């Protein structure tokens, strides 16, 4: 190696400072800290996202300037067990959704004495509206590579795979470039930093199946098979990729590793709550004034995230619920927004942390429709292997459609929960086991809305079109404009006489309502 990490840091740090100082409104430049400016950022605590928007992702030197690869250097001077101890003591838990202790996962792979082990980075981010991993891969690819190399050293693996969606072309090219740079610099490849440790990383592109984010399906896909989950007879850390011990970590988990190694377990476990340490990145989207990626210490309340960072609900509307954990998560009603966002508290209220989706809903959202939206996603993405997920979810969706189309009966509410429970209890993989969660949690917190849909054929948010009734009221002046715009000719009436809508024929397109000059159309 031509230059040491310290030498590169020395020169590049000042170049980076100089570049950032050109935009003093955007960046805060301290003597050892660089950050993004603005209240949106200042209320956050950025660890996984520490470099995003600050360093140039194409420059390994800038990554090194912000202490990049120092954690790897430090780890290589320790015993592998010591590295695992630090990760364990930090309390870091998997950010992919399940929240298993990262250190314990590493340890259970490390104990196996075999010649081949693997480290896989799960970058098959697929939850609708979630883009935490993508921004890390695109904005700070080296942090993932460094995390993987540290993991490889700790568990005794020399080979790593990054399974990344092909729909993330920018992330893919950033990773290819980063791997190339890291190899050239000797922080990846053979004899890393003269330690005798070898570690190589290859990319595998996912072909667009959500289920390939499930660890066993992901491994099947890397092995060149159809991406379908395996029945869990063995832990992945015991028999994983091609039957060898394998550690699969999510992008955000791996991005947390270098700072933990640099700053120590105590620093990390001091952030967050006692059982959920550190921070979590959320994709805050939906009915919120400042949507975006937020990284906050575990244990912050939903209210604080939505109102303090997200700036509250637009147009002064009333908040209704927040869906955490993506399509496998649950809806938490606004009256429970003092709930703290950590693994335990979310589970207590019937939701999950998941990979960090956070969709805010207001009074205009129909909760039956929301459940339907998430379930539609799961039905589309089911791999088709097991019966409850393949047929059960489809039937569950068809039941929900009965509600939104005004065809449900009261007894269908029971059917919804019975079928959901069977799907949860019997599906083969996590996707199926959690897919009815949006239905179960909305049934739990918004039972009345289901009841109204079934009994009164009423959607209080006026989202379910089939339940709407368009009527002409006494304001009608008989201008015939509605009649002219109706695409299905269901409006009758002579000029200057009150018109009439045939509700049987009406398709609830809303054209009459939009075109009426005198507010003579009532929607109920």
């Amino acid at each position, binding site marked *: 190696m031509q230059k040491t990490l310290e030498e590169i840091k020395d020169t590049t740090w000042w170049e980076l400072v100089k570049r950032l100082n050109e935009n003093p409104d955007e960046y805060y430049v301290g003597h050892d800290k660089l950050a993004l400016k603005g209240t949106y950022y200042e209320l956050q605590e950025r660890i996984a996202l520490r470099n995003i928007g600050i360093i140039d992702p194409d420059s390994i030197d800038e990554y090194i300037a912000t202490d990049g690869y120092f954690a790897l250097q430090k780890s290589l001077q320790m015993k592998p067990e010591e590295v695992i101890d630090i990760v364990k003591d930090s309390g870091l838990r998997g950010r992919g959704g399940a929240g298993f202790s990262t250190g314990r996962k590493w340890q259970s792979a490390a104990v196996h004495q075999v010649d081949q082990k693997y480290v896989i980075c799960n970058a098959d981010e697929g939850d609708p509206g979630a883009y935490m991993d993508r921004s890390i891969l695109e904005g700070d690819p080296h942090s993932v590579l460094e995390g993987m190399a540290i993991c490889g050293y700790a568990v005794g693996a020399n080979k790593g795979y990054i399974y990344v969606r092909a729909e993330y072309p920018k992330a893919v090219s950033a990773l290819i470039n980063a791997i190339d740079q890291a190899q050239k610099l000797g922080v990846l490849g053979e004899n890393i930093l003269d330690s005798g440790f070898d570690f190589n990383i290859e990319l595998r592109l996912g072909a667009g199946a959500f289920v390939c984010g499930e660890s066993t399906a992901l491994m099947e896909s890397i092995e060149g098979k159809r991406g379908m989950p395996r029945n869990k*007879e063995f832990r992945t850390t015991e028999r994983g990729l091609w039957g060898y011990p394998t550690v699969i970590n999510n992008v955000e988990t791996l991005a947390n590793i270098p700072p933990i190694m640099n700053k120590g377990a105590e620093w990390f476990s001091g952030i967050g709550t006692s059982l959920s340490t550190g921070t979590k990145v959320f994709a805050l989207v939906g009915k919120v004034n400042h949507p975006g990626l937020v990284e906050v210490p575990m244990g912050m309340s939903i209210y604080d995230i939505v109102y303090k960072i997200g700036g509250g609900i637009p147009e002064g509307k009333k908040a209704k619920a927040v869906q955490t954990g993506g399509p496998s998560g649950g809806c938490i009603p606004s009256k429970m927004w003092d709930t703290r966002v950590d693994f335990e508290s979310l589970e207590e209220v019937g939701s999950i942390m998941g990979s960090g989706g956070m969709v805010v809903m207001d009074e205009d959202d129909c909760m039956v429709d929301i459940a339907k939206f998430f379930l539609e996603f799961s039905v589309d993405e089911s791999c*088709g292997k097991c019966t409850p997920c393949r047929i059960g979810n489809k039937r569950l969706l068809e039941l929900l459609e009965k509600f939104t189309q005004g065809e449900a009966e009261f007894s269908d509410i029971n059917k919804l929960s019975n079928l959901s429970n069977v799907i949860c209890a019997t599906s083969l993989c996590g996707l199926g086991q959690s897919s009815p969660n949006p239905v179960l949690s909305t049934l739990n917190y918004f039972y009345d809305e289901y009841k109204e849909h079934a009994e009164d054929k009423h959607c209080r948010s006026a989202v379910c079109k089939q339940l709407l009734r368009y009527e002409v009221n006494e304001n009608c002046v008989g201008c015939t404009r509605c009649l002219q715009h109706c695409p299905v000719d269901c409006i009758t009436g002579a000029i200057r006489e009150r018109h009439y809508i045939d509700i049987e024929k009406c398709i609830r397109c809303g054209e009459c309502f939009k075109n009426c000059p005198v507010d003579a159309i009532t929607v109920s």
Partner: protein
Amino acid sequence: MRVTINEKDIHVEEGTTILEAAKLLDISIPTLCHLDLHDIKYLNKQASCRVCVVDVKGQQNLLPACATPCKEGMVISTDSFRAIQARRTIVELLLSDHPNSCLTCAMNLDCELQKLARDLGIRKIHYMGETHDEPIDDNSYSIIRDPNKCILCKRCETMCTEIQTVGALTDIGRGFFTTVGPAFHRPMNETTCTFCGQCLAVCPTGALTEVNNIKKVWRAINAGKYVVVQTAPAVRVALGEEFGLEPGTPVTGKMVTALRRMGFRQVFDTDFAADLTIMEEATEFVNRVKHDGKLPILTSCCPSWVNFIEQQFPDMLDIPSTCKSPHEMFGALTKSYLCEKMGLDQEQVVVVSIMPCVAKKYESHRKELQGVEGHRDVDFVITTRELAIMIKETGINFLDLPNSDFDNPMGESTGAGVIFGASGGVIEATLRTAYHMITDSELPDTLIEFHSLRGLDGIKTASVDIEGRNFNIAVAHGLGNARKLLEGIRDGTFDVDAIEIMACPGGCIGGAGQPYHHGDMEILEKRAQGIYSEDRGKERRRSHQNVHVQKLYKEFLGTPGSKKAHDLLHTHYTPRPRL
């Protein structure tokens, strides 16, 4: 380790599944996708249907008994309310996307889904909705694929890919619209499918069934055609199962009587043609040996196997014997020799083969087997199962039928012809006659049985000394084993002189046209025992001792391997490499 199932304790070895442990305790857990054919190393352990889910103490979710290994101290309940309810719901879900055409389905009363629905007392399907509506593939001569009846158990795929190494079937699509079928929804006859039919032998529903030729046969009989029928060796030891008899019980005499009552004009035995095949094949083998010809020689009785070598090993087509399969030889002779001898009009003669096999249906349509004046050697092939249906349809009380003998001149057979039905039989019969041809003496009765070439081992080998020369013999059944043998021959690691290959496990007795074994491999062994006891009961056990075969050569063919014999009884192979 110790586990408790339904409050009963049991000690099991590590790796035992909950399903296996429950079996030891005589506790039955319903299964659907699971299938373990241990003897042929077939294991379909998808854990995908979820019918076998059980309650395990301390587990939030129900676990599939078929794929969950027991752990020390596990407390399992197979009959908890939750487990039974979940099972019922899952079967209801399967039925909600399954055609309601049980009464007219080919698998009626053989269907495992139907049985499950009955056993669980399903009377109403609570969740109905959209169903599959996909085209049925009936383009091939052998197999019909109805994706609407597929329950995604993947038994067929495991058979096709892992055991047969053909790989014609796989999952297509995803979610609700997933089906199992050939890539790009191609029809089966445009794939690498060899029509062995083992997929349909393990299909629990009517998603894969054989092409039914019953109607065509009745039509020929009723049209007053001179319908000649022949029955393969493996049929007689399996047909009885359809009438409640113990597997392996020979019902040859009753079968012949039944066929005559059904209106077949001549009831012959494919075993006769098997003896003839041996005469031709042993001659070819001895010629190759004497004139330093290509060795090893490969038997060519199995059409699925011929398909396999044409598609997958097109560079090795000089190895198989050029002999047609016995029933095709029979067909060719019926339309030449028999017509001549009995003064029949060839146009009026229809040859029907009753076979344990679905590939024979395809075989009868091979261009290479169109005989004299473009007539097919064999007109229709029906399976053992189809014959049973025809017998039942006619109202014949099969079990009370008297025995009768096959017609002559093509009804006589030796023990060598009979053992064609079991894996290893063809090569054993060849050896009995080849010995005679090389040494001009008879293999002593005590040495006539080659036990190392029998049984269900995938690849069986033997060394035979004939006049100081050592011959290495190998037998494979199942196309995966055949592939291993062929690859070994190609790269020189296998040094053999003669090989028998059959596509189906156990040989023809395990053919896809036989009564369903429903996972019980003991049935195959019993059928093999039936075959071998027939052999032992025969006065003549060597093909060259068949008096009518000798007469046939004298009257018509000349000598084995003559020009006429070649024209009528031999064929050629065509490379058909496929993706």
